[in-house]
C-alpha cells in the first residue's frame, strides 16, 4: 500500500475521519431500510465499532486521516453493497412491518371516516328533521362508500410512498384499484356502484390536490369527480341535485385522513426514512 501517505503523528479519531465513518454507517442504515428502531440502532453501533477498529488499525500503522479513510472504505466495502445484503436478510420482517403498518392506517382511517360521515349525516338528519334510521337501512351500501373513501385516499398515499419521484407512477395503485373496484362493484351491486366509485375518485383526487401548496385547493379535489358525475348524469335523472351532503362528508373525511396520514408518518417516521 505504498500509495498511502504515512504520518508519524498519533491522533485520536476526530474531525473529518469521524465524519467519514459516520457517513458510511448512515448510508448503510439509510439504504438497508432495516425494520425497527432498536435493530437500526444495534446495526449502527455494531458497524461503527467495526469502522473504529479498522481506523485505529490503520492509524496505528502510521497512516494519516486521509489514507485511513481510504483504507477503511476499501476494506469495509461499498455501503450500497452492505446495505443491499442487510436489506435481503431482513426483507421478510420489513414486508411484515409494512403490512402491519398499512393495516393500522387502513383501520384507523376507516373508523375515522365512519365517525366523520356519521356525524355529518346525523347533523343533517337533525336539521332536515329526517330519520337517521332511514340511512341505516342501506348500511351496507354506506359501508361500501366508507371503504371506497379510505381505499381512494390510501391507495394514492401508497402510490406516493412507493414512487415518490414520479406522479404518473404514484397514480398507478389508485388507478388499478379504482378499475378493480369498478369491476367488482359493477358486478356485485350494479345499481348502487356509482356512489362508492364517486367517493373513491373524490378521495383520491382530494389527496392528489392536497399535495399542492395552495390553501383549500384540495376542496376542489373532492368536488370535481362529483361535479363531473352530476354534469354527465344529472340531466338524465329527474330532480337529481348536486349531492352537497355527500361532498361535505367526503371533504371532512379527507381532512381527517390527511391528519391521520401525518400522524402515521410521525409515528413510523424512521421506517419511512
Amino acid at each position, binding site marked *: 500500500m505504498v500509495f498511502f501517505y504515512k504520518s508519524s503523528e498519533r491522533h485520536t479519531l476526530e474531525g473529518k475521519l469521524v465524519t467519514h465513518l459516520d457517513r458510511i454507517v448512515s448510508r448503510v442504515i439509510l439504504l438497508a431500510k432495516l425494520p425497527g428502531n432498536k435493530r437500526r440502532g444495534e446495526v449502527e453501533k*455494531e*458497524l461503527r*465499532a*467495526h469502522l473504529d477498529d479498522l481506523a485505529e488499525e490503520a492509524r496505528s500503522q502510521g497512516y494519516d486521516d486521509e489514507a485511513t479513510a481510504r483504507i477503511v472504505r476499501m476494506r*469495509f*466495502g*461499498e455501503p450500497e453493497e*452492505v446495505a443491499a*445484503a442487510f436489506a435481503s*436478510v431482513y426483507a421478510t420482517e420489513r414486508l411484515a412491518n409494512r403490512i402491519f403498518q398499512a393495516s393500522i392506517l387502513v383501520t384507523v382511517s376507516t373508523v375515522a371516516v365512519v365517525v366523520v360521515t356519521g356525524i355529518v349525516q346525523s347533523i343533517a338528519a337533525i336539521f332536515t328533521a329526517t330519520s337517521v334510521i332511514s340511512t341505516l337501512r342501506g348500511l351496507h351500501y354506506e359501508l361500501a362508500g366508507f371503504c371506497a373513501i379510505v381505499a381512494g385516499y390510501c391507495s394514492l398515499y401508497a402510490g406516493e410512498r412507493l414512487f415518490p419521484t414520479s406522479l404518473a407512477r404514484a397514480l398507478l395503485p389508485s388507478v388499478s384499484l379504482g378499475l378493480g373496484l369498478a369491476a367488482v362493484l359493477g358486478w356485485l351491486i350494479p345499481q348502487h356502484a356509482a356512489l362508492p366509485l364517486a367517493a373513491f375518485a373524490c378521495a383520491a383526487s382530494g389527496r392528489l390536490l392536497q399535495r399542492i401548496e395552495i390553501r383549500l385547493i384540495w376542496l376542489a379535489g373532492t368536488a370535481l369527480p362529483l361535479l363531473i358525475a352530476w354534469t354527465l348524469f344529472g340531466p338524465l335523472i329527474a330532480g337529481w341535485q348536486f349531492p352537497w351532503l355527500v361532498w361535505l362528508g367526503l371533504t371532512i373525511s379527507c381532512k381527517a385522513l390527511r391528519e391521520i396520514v401525518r400522524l402515521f408518518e410521525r409515528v413510523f417516521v424512521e421506517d419511512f426514512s
Partner: protein
Amino acid sequence: MRGVPFDRELLKGSIALLILKLLSERDMYGYEIIQESVRRSQDAFEFKEGTLYPALHQLHKRGYLHSEWRTGENGKQRKYYGLTVAGRKAARRSEQEWFSFTKVVNAILSKANS
C-alpha cells in the same frame, strides 16, 4: 500470499461455514472474526468486511448464533457472537458437507489434470 483474488460467489458461499467454524471455538465480535480468518489464511483470505455483518445477522436469524454486547478492557462495547446448540450442529454439518464437496471436486479435477 496476500490478496489472492477469490471469486466473490465462492467467498459468499463459504462465509457462513467460516463464521460457524470460528465461533465454534470461542465467542467473537465481527472485527475479531475478520482478523482471525486473515491470520489463519496467512493474509490470503480477503473480502469486503462490511458484508460479514449481514451474514452474521442471517445466521443469528436462523437461530445458529446468540449475541450480546460486552465491554472490552479498553472500555469499548462490542457485539459478541457465539454458537447456539443448533449452530453447533449446523457447523458440524456444514463442515462435513464442505469436505465431501471439496473431495468430489478434487477427485474430478485430479482426474481431469492427469
